[in-house]
């Protein structure tokens, strides 16, 4: 058990470091993506998305591997196989547990950063799509420009339903 424990802890710990590396690459890709959106370098997005897809695949594989390692490790430690990382840490010696938790904390920080980048990129894309629609409508003459009444009340243009056969 002692050999298995040591080997498994090493493997598990190394895998956490590997995941940290993958997430760091992913974070960097997302930063590039955000930058391309800010600068309007839309051609670059195609390139970035291809890289992003590869990393997402890598992340998915490494997450499966982490799950496997975690289950094996839990079995060796004699705790339920679906135990969380903090339960695993508390079952280890103080030094090993602390080392593992430090790695996990770093990974969590990275995940938070990734999540914020995702959120920002998502709203940036929503914004851009909205604007493409606005420009498209303006150019095609489908724009609905609101006006104001004599009393200053906003009067949204509901479109000319009569000529669309709806009136």
């Amino acid at each position, binding site marked *: 058990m002692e050999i298995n424990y040591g080997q498994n802890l090493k493997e598990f710990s190394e895998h956490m470091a590997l995941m940290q590396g993958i997430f760091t690459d992913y974070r960097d890709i997302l930063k590039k993506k955000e930058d391309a959106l800010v600068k309007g370098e839309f051609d670059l997005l195609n390139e970035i998305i291809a890289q992003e897809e590869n990393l997402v695949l890598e992340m998915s594989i490494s997450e499966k591997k982490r799950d496997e390692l975690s289950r094996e490790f839990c079995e060796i430690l004699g705790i339920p196989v679906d135990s969380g990382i903090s339960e695993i840490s508390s079952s280890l010696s103080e030094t090993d547990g602390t080392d593992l938790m430090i790695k996990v904390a770093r990974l969590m920080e990275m995940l938070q950063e990734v999540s914020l980048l995702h959120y*920002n990129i998502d709203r940036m894309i929503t914004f851009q799509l*909205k604007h493409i629609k606005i420009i498209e409508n*303006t150019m095609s003459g489908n724009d609905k*420009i609101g006006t104001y009444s004599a009393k200053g009340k906003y009067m949204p243009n509901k479109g000319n339903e009569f000529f669309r056969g709806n009136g």
Partner: protein
Amino acid sequence: MRINHQMLHSTILRDITNNFTKIAKLHEQGASGLKVRYPSDDAVVATRASNIMSRMRDFEQYKRNANTVDTYLKGYDNVTQEISSITTRVRELVVKGGHGTLTENDKQSISSEIGKLKEQLIQISNTNIGGNYIFGGADSKTAPVDEDGNIVLEAIADRKQVTNLGGYKFEYSFSAYDAFTVDGNESIFNLMDDIVENLDEDNPQGYLNGIALEKVEKFELQTQSMIAENGSSQRFLEMSSNRFDSYKGFLEEYLSKEQDADFLETFTNLMNQNSVLQASMKKQRQRNDDVSCGFHELMVLKI
């Protein structure tokens, strides 16, 4: 049909008037630089131009909204960095206070420094930009924290401020509850008071090393998240401002192609019309010298 003198006279006068109208329009196009100025010039182009101009005014408004938000975000940027430095110092003091070997003087000096840091934080929480309290949420006209460090912002005002950026509802503000509470529950000012109170106790180590340190660390993380969130909002704002500029540029160019007069064409037309007018006037002069010349002079004066 017999063409009498009166009919001839009327026809010539009508020709001259038409020519003058055409010339007047060409002069106007030359002066304004616009080929389509009134819907009657070209209804389709005029309507599209009017819509584009409305859209451009919208973009100008969105740009102004973005500038206002930018002022806020820069304010948050400065302020959150200050909060972060203060919190780091509070954590250091809590760790220091948690040592069992402190004298009464040491404890007093820690308490006094925490008191000063609290005052500084209260000042920061009431940061005001252009008459608006930036942590005031929906009630930006009222100071959100009183001088004792109580958050007095009404719960109903604990909302993010929203601005319209091109139809996108952009949320950008932080309320006093977002910025000065731990887990949206206990205020950082109360926590600082508790730390000072516990330092007066005989054995403050348990509280300081446990609960207090944990809460201060949580607050530190929250502040870091706020800094990151504000940073991403700044990136979004940069992107939207860039887009407004480029869309506006695009619309201006489009409008110019649609609506602006081609000067060469306009002035060629103007010269042609001048020639036609001269010919008409010569003809008129031949037919009816006195009346037409008088009319001609009158028209010239009008122009």
